[in-house]
């Protein structure tokens, strides 16, 4: 409970209050995803003929729809869709004993597996890096990718581990006590990224599903 939490925007009451600053609007989110898709195509030398060699794995909750959107954008720009899946790393977290047992999220690995693929982990916010570390540990049990990269919509700083993202939608300098809430239409009914001021940390639901990044 010591570290501030990233609000996940599950609570309609908290979203859009006076204390929130809009970091990315709906069109910003769309443009950012398109830009990351182009960067992935360029950096991975993406070939439609070998589209199945690239797998986007979304980290639940909101990394999952982000990975699907990135996959669709890459398919649109490059003419072939990469593999898209979901990887829940809850069982590999190092902070399980610090709070009541969390509910697990779905995992789905594309049919071809991960061996020798280029795996790109996708998450909404990069914070302490602990979720990514857990995901790297989980990956190891699912196979041996050729390489692993990381794409995030927002990098808010405050890393606690030597982890960095290969693709960043927006870098946002934040105070530890602030929260970055990514809302996506698949889950929250609308696309927006909010910076939430300190002091709202304890409102209901903030800790129910969110965790230190």
């Amino acid at each position, binding site marked *: 409970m010591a570290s501030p939490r990233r609000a996940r925007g599950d609570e309609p009451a908290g979203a859009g209050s006076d204390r929130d600053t809009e970091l990315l609007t709906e069109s910003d989110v769309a443009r950012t995803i398109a830009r990351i898709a182009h960067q992935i195509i360029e950096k991975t030398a993406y070939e439609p003929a070998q589209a199945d060699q690239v797998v986007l794995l979304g980290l639940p909750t909101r990394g999952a729809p982000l990975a699907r959107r990135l996959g669709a954008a890459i398919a649109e720009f490059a003419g072939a869709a990469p593999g898209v899946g979901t990887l*829940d790393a809850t*069982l*590999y977290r190092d902070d*399980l*004993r*610090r*709070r*009541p*047992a*969390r*509910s*697990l*999220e*779905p*995992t*789905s*690995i594309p049919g071809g*597996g991960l061996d020798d693929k280029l795996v790109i982990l996708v998450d909404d916010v990069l914070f302490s890096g602990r979720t990514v570390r857990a995901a790297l*540990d989980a990956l190891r*049990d*699912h196979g041996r990718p050729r390489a692993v990269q990381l794409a995030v919509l927002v990098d808010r700083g405050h890393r606690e581990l030597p982890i960095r993202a290969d693709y960043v939608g927006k870098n946002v300098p934040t105070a530890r006590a602030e929260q970055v809430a990514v809302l996506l239409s698949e889950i929250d009914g609308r696309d927006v990224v909010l910076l939430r001021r300190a002091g709202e940390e304890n409102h209901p639901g903030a800790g129910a599903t969110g965790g230190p990044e």
Partner: protein
Amino acid sequence: MRHLLSTGDLDAATANLLLDTADRLKQALLGREVHKLPTLRGRTIVSLFYEDSTRTRVSFEIAGKWMSADTINVSAKGSSVSKGESLRDTAATLAAAGADCVIIRHPASGAPHRLAAWGDRDSLEGHGPAVVNAGDGTHEHPTQALLDAATLRDRLGSIAGKRIGIVGDVTHSRVARSNVLLLATLGAEVVLVAPPTLLPVGVADWPCRVGLHLDAELPGLDAVMMLRVQAERMHGGFFPSAREYAIGYGLSERRLALLPEHAVVLHPGPMVRGMEISPAVADSPRAAILAQVRNGVHVRMAVLYHLLAGAPEVQG
């Protein structure tokens, strides 16, 4: 969740959470060569079995090992129990030795409840180990009911609104009790079918209906759960002969044909082939008996996860 003693303690939200967790765990392990999760590293699980068991003991042990817990089996035969040690002393010893969780099967109904209550008082730390009921006498067997529910959900899509028949020796069956409570909580309509001598006193207060004629009930069922006739608990004549029981209440090929096309056949095992279920039915694709065993591992992983993975729950 601090202990798992009875399915009667589970509300629909908690029961569904356990079933969803079991599904997620199954997904997380699907297609993997390494069946190992680090989640319960450093936790110690002791199974204390005062009665014989194959599938429950094995699947709890596999569940613990797949989540990296240290699992230890103690059976009454070959332990200090045979020297006359009481259940309370045995349990306190296990807790003092460092067990985080005790899985107990005992011939006395209510033994796990006693264990849970003693645990906090006898413990050196002020809180005893988590207790999981793995079958107590003729009372309850919660993880069996959960794995049955998981199997029904897999095969039928959902449980709410489905009609489930539970057939056979209800009196001596902890599986039946746990299932009636859990399935009713999950919104199913439960029908018990048994000879009158094998229906327990007080069954009228259970959240279910009682039928006496199997042939009349079968066409309306979405699933039928056959119970083992527990000869070891029967002292006296509950029915004239095994042959007569099989004719009245056994699931034969003829009866299988009376079930709707989509209906599933469950059996908690161990089966007595030719008694409550004919070999042809047990081996038919309609029977989900091995799927039940497979689901048992995931359901027990889910139970251990919710008992042991999170921060210790303060006893409320």
